């Protein structure tokens, strides 16, 4: 099963070429040119990872991260930034980002992080399924 990614950046040239390269690596990628568009997409679809630019017009990456996490606390977000600083990294992690990658990004590194996000999501799903089964067993008393 291919990794399903939502790529969010206001630079449409960047979105197009990055998406093309990801597709060539069999990553199932959807693009959004704004945080608002991304928020609307995650309501309809489930993604293994959201790759989110930190500096975007109107709603920046940190605000978008908070909004994404409030809609889906399990969502795996990788932030893209022009200048990765320790302070930014710590802030992002505190808000629940999975990772922070500096632009220009190495696609090999990014693809590896997407795989890790997928694995993390699977673990979370398994854990939730297990909890659900345990809850059903306890309630039904089988």
């Amino acid at each position, binding site marked *: 099963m291919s990794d399903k990614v939502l790529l969010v950046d206001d*630079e449409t*040239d*960047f979105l197009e*070429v*990055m998406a*093309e*390269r990801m597709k*060539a690596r069999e990553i199932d990628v959807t693009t959004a040119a704004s945080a608002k568009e991304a928020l609307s997409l995650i309501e309809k679809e489930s993604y293994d990872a959201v790759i989110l630019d930190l*500096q*975007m*017009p*109107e709603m*920046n990456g940190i605000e978008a991260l908070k909004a994404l996490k409030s809609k889906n606390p399990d969502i795996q977000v990788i932030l893209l930034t*022009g*200048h990765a600083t320790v302070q930014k990294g710590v802030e992002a992690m505190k808000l629940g980002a999975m990772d922070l990658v500096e*632009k*220009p*990004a190495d*696609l090999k590194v990014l693809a590896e992080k997407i795989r890790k996000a997928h694995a993390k999501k699977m673990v979370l799903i398994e854990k939730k399924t297990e909890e659900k089964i345990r809850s059903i067993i306890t309630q039904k008393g089988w």
Partner: protein
Amino acid sequence: MAPSSSSEVSVAEDAPAVCGLQFFGAVSASISHELKNAIAIVNEHAGLLEDLAALAERGRPVDPKRLKQTATQIARQVQRADGIIRNMNRFAHSIDDPVKTVDLPDMICFLAALAERKATMAGVVIELACRDASFSVQTRPFFLLNLLWLCLKTLIEMIPSGAVVQLGTDPNDRGAGVWFSCENLDLPEETILNAIRKQAEPLLCVLNADVVIDRVTGCIALSVPKIICDA
């Protein structure tokens, strides 16, 4: 009289320099972010060419149209980065002459270019209303640019997303006026004016400039002398 040590320099004397450093930092940071975006796109196109070359090595023909398209997109980003660096260079040289005769409409256009990213990030559009005719004032160019930036930055930060800021300049009896106008104000003009004055006080003082609300037009109007007094 013994020369004064640095510790004796008062906050007021230091204030324009502090403002200037903050301005320099803010503009440099904005430029570096813009450059990073252009570089990131060039990087992805270089990666795409590598991908296409790898496919060609494995026997899959490369469409020349795709290569041309990539070359065009790289050239566009190079042009974009070149424009950013030109502005950066002009900005860096704005500190060269403490006092200089400057073309004000030209400075306003440059200000709009420097503030474009900040405006875009806030969802604000800058519209220039500069007339073709040029006119000049003898002033402190770096501090004047700093003052204009502070006015525009404060306005951008205090108006709602989607708003349009118009700015222009006209010669007047005193020297020259620069005006900033926005129709979608949520706040009283006085609140914005006070916010500008609070931040720009040292610059207004060093430039012998004044900022008021134009009662006729409702614009924020900045006035600078034709020739700075102590030049």
